[in-house]
């Protein structure tokens, strides 16, 4: 090994530390240093200089309270992390609520008074036709248990029946006689115990079970003449 090669390897040689050199190079360098006073002297000078600079480099007074401050920072950081997490969740929840509110507000239908009036007008002009259309639309035509006179219809739609929106038809005959025809599903009410009968002095109820489509029909009517709601002989409506 010559001196230029040795001085190159010396760059990787750090006394007191594991060498970055491979063992063969380290051994060759050691052999050269033992034999070459110039390189050994250069290494000694450099090592002394490095030691002096290293000592100065490390001579930094560290604040005595730094460790305590770091630890108290950590404690408050942990507290804030929890708080931030809680705030994040609360924010996310309130955003969800707000988004749901906005969704509901945005998607609620506009009340269409023209359609409402039109529907009522059609029912008034041609009650039989309108009611028949309504029955067809809801596939109730076959479930109609009697030959009702649909020209008497004054309402065809959903009506709240003890908390359940229920398909219902109202017929109004002469002399304040009214019949409500309800189309019921077993899933909506418990219908096992209900029976036909005169329930008050003014109102009688008829129950029809096992109609096509699985319907049960309940007709509640005033007056003593059920026939008033049916098509008369010869009627073709």
């Amino acid at each position, binding site marked *: 090994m010559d001196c230029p090669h040795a001085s190159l390897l010396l*760059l990787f040689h750090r006394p007191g530390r594991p060498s970055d050199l491979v063992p063969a190079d380290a051994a060759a360098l050691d052999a050269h240093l033992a034999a070459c006073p110039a390189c050994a002297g250069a290494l000694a000078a450099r090592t002394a200089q490095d030691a002096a600079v290293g000592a100065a480099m490390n001579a930094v007074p560290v604040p005595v309270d730094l460790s305590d401050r*770091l630890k108290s920072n*950590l404690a408050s950081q942990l507290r804030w992390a929890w708080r931030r997490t809680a705030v994040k969740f609360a924010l996310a929840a309130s955003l969800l609520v707000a988004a749901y509110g906005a969704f509901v507000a945005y998607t609620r239908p506009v009340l269409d008074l023209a359609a409402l009036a039109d529907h009522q007008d059609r029912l008034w002009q041609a009650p039989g036709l309108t009611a028949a259309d309504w029955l067809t639309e809801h596939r109730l035509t076959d479930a109609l248990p009697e030959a009702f006179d649909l020209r008497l219809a004054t309402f065809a739609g959903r009506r709240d029946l003890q908390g359940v929106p229920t398909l219902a038809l109202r017929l109004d005959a002469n002399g304040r006689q009214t019949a409500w025809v309800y189309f019921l599903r077993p899933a909506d009410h418990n219908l096992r115990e209900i029976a036909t009968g005169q329930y008050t002095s003014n109102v009688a109820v008829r129950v029809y079970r096992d109609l096509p489509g699985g319907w049960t029909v309940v007709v509640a009517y005033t007056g003593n003449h059920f026939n008033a709601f049916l098509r008369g002989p010869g009627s073709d409506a």
Partner: protein
Amino acid sequence: MAAAIDAHALIDAHYRSLYRYAYRLGGSAADADDLVQETFGKALPRLATLREPAHAKAWLFRILRNAYLHRVRDEKRNRCVPGENLDGYAAPEPAPPPAVDPATLQAALDDLDETFRTPLILFYFEDFSYREIADQMDLPIGTVMSRLARAKNYLRAKLSPGNETDGLPAR
């Protein structure tokens, strides 16, 4: 709380060397204090991501250097010796080295570009191998060696008596 115990152990093990590193990087006690706090502030929430406890020191040093570089970039500080000029500092004749004045050393460091200052500081802390310094700086080891050799020559010239103003650029 297990995380807090680990964090305290981490602080105790490394705050001194981090402070010295920060001080030598920035040259100011106040900045060093801030940098160490910022380093632990960034590191501790991510402590769970540290797989190898043996790498904690290198990890913390890297976080500190990134924080420092971020600040310097923000301050747009530009009072360093360009790296190209370092070749002007030839190694003086071997002589008994004087005891080095830490303030003079810091002044010399302050005038050095960070890309040379960081390997020099890490080298003299003797905590890191060349390989680890290279990893810290995301550089090939050859680049680190070459910067280190040039920076050491520069430092030797700056610290030699009578050489304080020899060819130095103004801050």
